């Protein structure tokens, strides 16, 4: 393990990777700051840039974009009450009242320090847990992987459906269906190509990610314009907090760091649930007098979600790096990018590509430092971006999305397909179908089919592997619980209504 850590340190501290993490943090902060654009879009926009890079550098850049976007989202939540990212919505509850009362600098500084500590604690926990889990998962077989991926898909569907489990479920199946387009690698048979040569290799992951997130989000911003925010509180002055104030929030930060990390590990939970949960926990733990301050500019109310969302970002890397199973839309895009670099994520990543595994973990710590040391003092200037008019900004996002895909394939047919997918994704968004499960299904489709094929082959075509192997059986029981529990809850709710 120490050899791996040393390899990771030397890789993460190489000049190229240090530049990558800085650029990632800056780009993420800029994009996350813009209301309506989240980390998924930010990372999708980065994929074409990372294609020519070393896998470790590419991943470091994207990880930097991820927590940079969360940091940027907090800034717009606090300054203009317009969260750029769902994971920072809870930060606006107390951050914006603080900014309105003339304490914008204090609120931003507290958010940055909380994020830094949350991220650092979570990185340490990641360092501790990821290798352990990776070692355990080395004993996994095809049937275990198959079931584990099914568990990932069902939990994501259960959590990300915003209360509508069926919609998330059909989107997951839709993503799996899209993954079957092209030549089946196990049998060499063409499926759903309809004679088109362009479809022989299947649908491009980059194209799908860019069209369904970056492009669709920009179109959604045109269709349903975000209401003009009050930018009067974007003036940031004093960025300091007193020792007494820090003492007040220290226990909150400690609790929220651990809570955020473990919530982040759960597939589908991620930064949004972590931040709301941490906010709720702090509110419940607060005395009656402190409880009154929540929602009116409480420092604890700001520190809790800020710590938890950053810790959850690191936590979400555990299933990605150790099992090769993304727990959220953001890590699903990273998984797709890793596969396109020729690196197969999973337990073997720890053994076959230790420089990628460890350098990503080490770079997270560097990224948190970058956000604190460089981005925080620059926030008064970066916040000026909020004043850029949307009629200028949206066309630029469209341009970067289109040209990003074009520069990979140099095929204008991809751009036509992209526009149609974006329109379809926009309609699905309007009908309130979540898009992230679709992408997750698309990315996990091929490995699921492959592992099912191998498990059946090893069992002479029998599905007895579901109950014969204890690990598979245990995961299968979890899948059943994840599927049945929400249905039972819906049934009970409706019958009581």
């Amino acid at each position, binding site marked *: 393990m120490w050899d791996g850590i040393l390899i990771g340190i030397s890789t993460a501290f190489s000049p190229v990777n240090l530049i990558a993490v800085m650029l990632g943090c800056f780009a993420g902060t800029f994009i996350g700051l813009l209301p309506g654009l989240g980390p998924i879009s930010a990372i999708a926009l980065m994929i074409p840039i990372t294609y*020519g890079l070393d896998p470790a550098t590419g991943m470091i850049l994207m990880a930097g974009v991820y927590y940079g976007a969360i940091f940027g989202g907090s800034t717009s939540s606090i300054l203009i009450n317009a969260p750029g990212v769902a994971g920072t919505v809870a930060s606006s509850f107390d951050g914006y009242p603080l900014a309105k009362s003339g304490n914008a600098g204090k609120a931003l500084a507290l958010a940055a320090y909380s994020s830094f500590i949350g991220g650092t604690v979570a990185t340490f926990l990641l360092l501790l847990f990821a290798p352990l889990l990776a070692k355990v998962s080395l004993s996994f077989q095809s049937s275990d992987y198959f079931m584990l991926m099914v568990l990932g898909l069902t939990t994501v569907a259960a959590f990300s459906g915003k209360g*509508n489990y*069926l*919609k998330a*479920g*059909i989107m997951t*199946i*839709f993503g*799996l*269906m899209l993954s*079957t387009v092209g030549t*089946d690698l*196990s*049998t*060499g*048979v*063409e*499926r*759903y190509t309809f004679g088109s040569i362009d479809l022989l290799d299947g649908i491009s992951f980059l194209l799908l990610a860019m069209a369904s997130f970056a492009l669709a989000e920009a*179109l959604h911003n*045109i*269709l*349903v*314009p975000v209401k003009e925010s009050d930018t009067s509180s974007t003036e940031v002055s004093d960025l300091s907090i007193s020792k007494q104030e820090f003492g007040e929030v220290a226990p909150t930060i400690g609790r929220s760091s651990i809570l955020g990390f473990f919530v982040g590990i759960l597939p589908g939970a991620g930064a949004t649930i972590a931040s709301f949960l941490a906010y709720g926990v702090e509110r419940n733990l607060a005395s009656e007098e402190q409880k009154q301050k929540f929602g009116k500019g409480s420092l604890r109310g700001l520190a809790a979600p800020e710590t938890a969302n950053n810790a959850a970002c690191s936590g979400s890397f555990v299933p990605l790096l150790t099992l090769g199973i993304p727990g959220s839309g953001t890590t699903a895009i990273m998984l797709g990018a890793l596969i396109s670099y020729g690196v197969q994520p999973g337990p073997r990543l720890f053994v076959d590509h230790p420089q990628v595994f460890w350098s990503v973990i080490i770079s997270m710590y560097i990224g948190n430092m970058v956000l604190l040391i460089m981005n925080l003092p620059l926030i008064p200037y970066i916040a000026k971006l909020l004043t850029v*008019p*949307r*009629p*200028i900004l*949206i*066309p*630029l996002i*469209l*341009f970067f999305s*289109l*040209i990003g895909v*074009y*520069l990979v394939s140099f095929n*204008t047919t991809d*751009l*036509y397909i992209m*526009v149609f997918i*974006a*329109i379809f994704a*926009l309609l*699905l968004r*309007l*009908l*309130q*179908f979540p898009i992230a499960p679709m992408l997750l299904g698309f990315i996990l489709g091929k490995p699921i*089919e492959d592992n*099912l*094929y191998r498990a*059946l*082959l090893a069992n002479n*075509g029998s599905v007895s592997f579901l109950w014969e192997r204890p690990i598979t059986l245990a995961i299968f029981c979890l899948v059943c619980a994840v599927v049945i529990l929400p249905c039972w809850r819906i049934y009970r709710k*409706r019958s009581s209504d």
Partner: protein
Amino acid sequence: MNEQRVGGVIFFVFCALYLFFATDITVTSESTFSARTFPYILGVMGCIVSLLLIVLPSIQKTIALTQLKWSAVFAMCLAMLVYAFLLSRIGFIIATILFLNTCFIIMRERKWRHMFYTSFSLTCIFWLLLTQVLNIYLAPGSWWMG
């Protein structure tokens, strides 16, 4: 009809077609698992879930689609398709400047100087970055090449 049922009908049609076209997939061996098996499983699961979407009552509200800015979105999509058409024909620089300015106009930006400076400077910087720094060849456009 509310949005859940509309979505359910769309997906049911899609899944039924998916299942129908799965029968066209060639089967090369007699084994239990062929290239058709996974699409069959998905198609059946998709039909069941989309039927549940149609049948089960929904508590979600319907959305007022008429209050949205559809004309701007359609104009923007058209601009993107025209950009894709022109990119290989008139070259990156002219196509991009035209595309950005069209988008600015669709977005009701009327500060002509801002529009011109933004589109021109961004396109030129991006072109220089791609061709001179990253050594990516961008064809000048088939119409100019004869």
